[in-house]
């Protein structure tokens, strides 16, 4: 067979729903199996967290020393990507996929380091928890009260060749925590108050299971597209959806983008984001608004959503007009700012779009709210 010179490495993610479910352990177990089968495997980054059984699993594995990065007078340790590239193993273990590198590192995210290893033809085994998936950020906040800052765009996870669920029942996890297996006593007590509340764990676990099922299905569909056996009829074409997201300087835009992207991924729709400005660019906006809007458009692009700034004096009619011309099937909007007594005369763009585009599907996306227990 004629192979290209460097074939991209394969990425396998061990997905869990909390610290302590056994992701790293499982990954190391697989590394040991690979090593026993004669595969050239190294540990690129490993976070021991002082867990005895996990550390024991690294025995006999080659570990690439971390590099030291200085930042504001302190020394931090990060994965030494260049050293791994120079060593060029068949397979490399990289713990904590969503990690953000300390400022001054060559790349800001660990998943970007992993990208380099894959491009060099090294297979990567890595670990992550469901709460770090970008599109679930608002929901995770709603469930746990924690705004997760280290997130991974969904497309990075979609690109993985395999996503494996590392499961453990919340009860067993809480026992581990109480026995001090996961964290030392003091940290364990504080952990029990937020992420490790039982309702939070159960909800996160359900999300992780559903996500893992979705990842399996997604890969199956991709495979089917690649290998349609001769003589089989192609599946009946589904209605094609195009989702348009209206972005503004409003901070709720990020939530809107995440939700629209998640729905489009799950129903197989195209998704793009627009903002409307009289000049067709952001130059007319006062600086704070311009920065927020730029941030939101960037955020959308990082999630692989195409963006555009439309020229128009009237936001509502510009968006509706653009939607009609571009076969948009659904327009995603945030909830109108306030209840108005004369809805027919409202100036709110969302309110006006609903009144104007009776020939289109309009989706008003809800804010996530937290109810204190």
């Amino acid at each position, binding site marked *: 067979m004629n192979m290209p010179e460097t074939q991209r490495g394969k990425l396998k993610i061990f997905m869990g729903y909390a610290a302590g479910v056994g992701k790293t352990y499982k990954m190391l177990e697989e590394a040991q199996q690979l090593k026993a089968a004669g595969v050239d495997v190294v540990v690129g980054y490993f976070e021991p967290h002082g867990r005895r059984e996990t550390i024991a699993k690294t025995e006999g594995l080659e570990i690439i020393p971390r590099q030291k990065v200085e930042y504001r007078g302190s020394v931090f340790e990060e994965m030494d990507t260049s050293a791994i590239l120079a060593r060029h193993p068949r397979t490399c273990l990289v713990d904590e996929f969503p990690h953000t590198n300390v400022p001054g590192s060559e790349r800001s995210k660990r998943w970007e380091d992993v990208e380099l290893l894959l491009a060099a033809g090294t297979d990567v085994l890595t670990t992550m928890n469901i709460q770090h998936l970008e599109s679930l950020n608002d929901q995770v906040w709603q469930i746990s009260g924690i705004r997760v800052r280290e997130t991974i765009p969904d497309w990075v996870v979609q690109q993985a060749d395999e996503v494996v669920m590392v*499961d453990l029942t919340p009860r067993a996890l809480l026992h581990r925590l109480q026995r001090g297996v996961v964290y030392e006593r003091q940290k364990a007590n504080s952990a029990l108050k937020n992420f490790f509340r039982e309702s939070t764990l159960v909800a996160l676990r359900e999300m992780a299971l559903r996500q893992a099922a979705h990842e399996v299905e997604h890969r199956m569909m991709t495979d089917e597209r690649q290998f349609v056996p001769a003589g089989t009829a192609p599946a009946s074409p589904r209605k094609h959806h195009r989702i348009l997201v209206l972005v503004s300087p409003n901070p709720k835009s990020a939530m809107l983008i995440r939700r629209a992207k998640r729905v489009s991924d799950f129903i197989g729709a195209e998704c793009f984001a627009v903002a409307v400005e009289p000049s067709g660019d952001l130059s007319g906006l006062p600086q704070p608004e311009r920065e927020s809007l730029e941030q939101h458009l960037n955020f959308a692009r990082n999630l692989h959503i195409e963006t555009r700034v439309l020229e128009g004096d009237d936001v509502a009619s510009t968006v509706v007009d653009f939607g009609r011309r571009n076969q948009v099937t659904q327009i995603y909007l945030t909830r109108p700012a306030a209840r108005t007594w004369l*809805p027919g005369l409202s100036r709110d763009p969302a*309110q006006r779009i609903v009144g104007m585009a009776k*020939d289109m599907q309009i*989706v008003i996306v809800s804010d996530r709210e937290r109810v204190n227990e």
Partner: protein
Amino acid sequence: MAHELRRKTPEECMLEVQAEEAALARKGHLKIFLGYASGVGKSYRMLDEARRRRERGQDVVVGAIQPQVPHEVEALLRKLEVIPLKNVAGGTAIDVDAVIRRHPAVCFVDGLAYNNPPGLRNPTRWQDVQELLAAGIKVIASINVQYVAELKDRIEAITGKRITETVPTSFIKSADEIEVVDAPPIEPTEWSLEEEAETLRRKERIAKLRELALLVAADVVDHQLNEYLECHGIRQHFGTYERILVCVTPRANIQEMLEEAQAVAEGFHGEVIVAYVKQPEISSENQSALDARLAVASAAGARIEILEGEDPAHALLDFARSRGITQLFVGHSQRGGLARLRASPLDKLIWEGHGMDVRVFPQ
């Protein structure tokens, strides 16, 4: 509606009801390890838990093992107390009386889905397990998703094999704990061309079974989550499971709304509910339009809820909140001109539909 449900036979219904009743009455705690194929390491994971429990001083026995076990499982079994299966004419079965006499704290059962040989008290092994649970023994058991009764037809379609031994879904859902063993086997990276087609087919079969196992576990966990929230008086739903509420009105484009709802439900493996708010003074013309739409929904197999309330928008929102609805589907308002000066039911849904997305459809 999201899952293509097969109509159950009366016998299956009976078993489901019995399993539910028994779950309510039992004393022992049930934990299930769920895998998607043989050879994914369920037995090992489960018996490794037995070893750890024993090392921590718990009184643990193994009540059932598979006829053939790999080396690493054999090594684990040597460290454990095994109550052998009893041999009867036509096969083997758990020695229920011996286990109950021995009365350990925990009994491990590897392979929950066996039929017992004829002539025994219980025709199936899961019923034996129920007896152990009723006797106050904690049971930890393993099962392959292929033997979940509700999935029988889909599994047969995927594997092309007839399934003769199943465990009622309600028994599995009644488990106090469920854990998925999800470990796709490491595949050799290169195959010969002849092997390739067969390998792809096998991979696809495995992927479908994996997906089913993960979804079964997710449903069990969803059930547990709702119970937990209810027990603790938490009124909030977390939206971990997509639930779509389609609101029917006399002019709703029910066909499109249902199709879209089904597409979303399929994508997310969620659920669709159809509802309408009873109007006290409805014209006969509107009533027949409404009836026609409800007939379409019911022909599509939808569950239809009839709501009442003076304010239709609030009736819908109250119902949606009580059911943890994540997406509300509703038609555009017909009002124009001066009537737009007053808030329509749609306006209220949009303003007050906190916690759910409101999707407005052309009529």
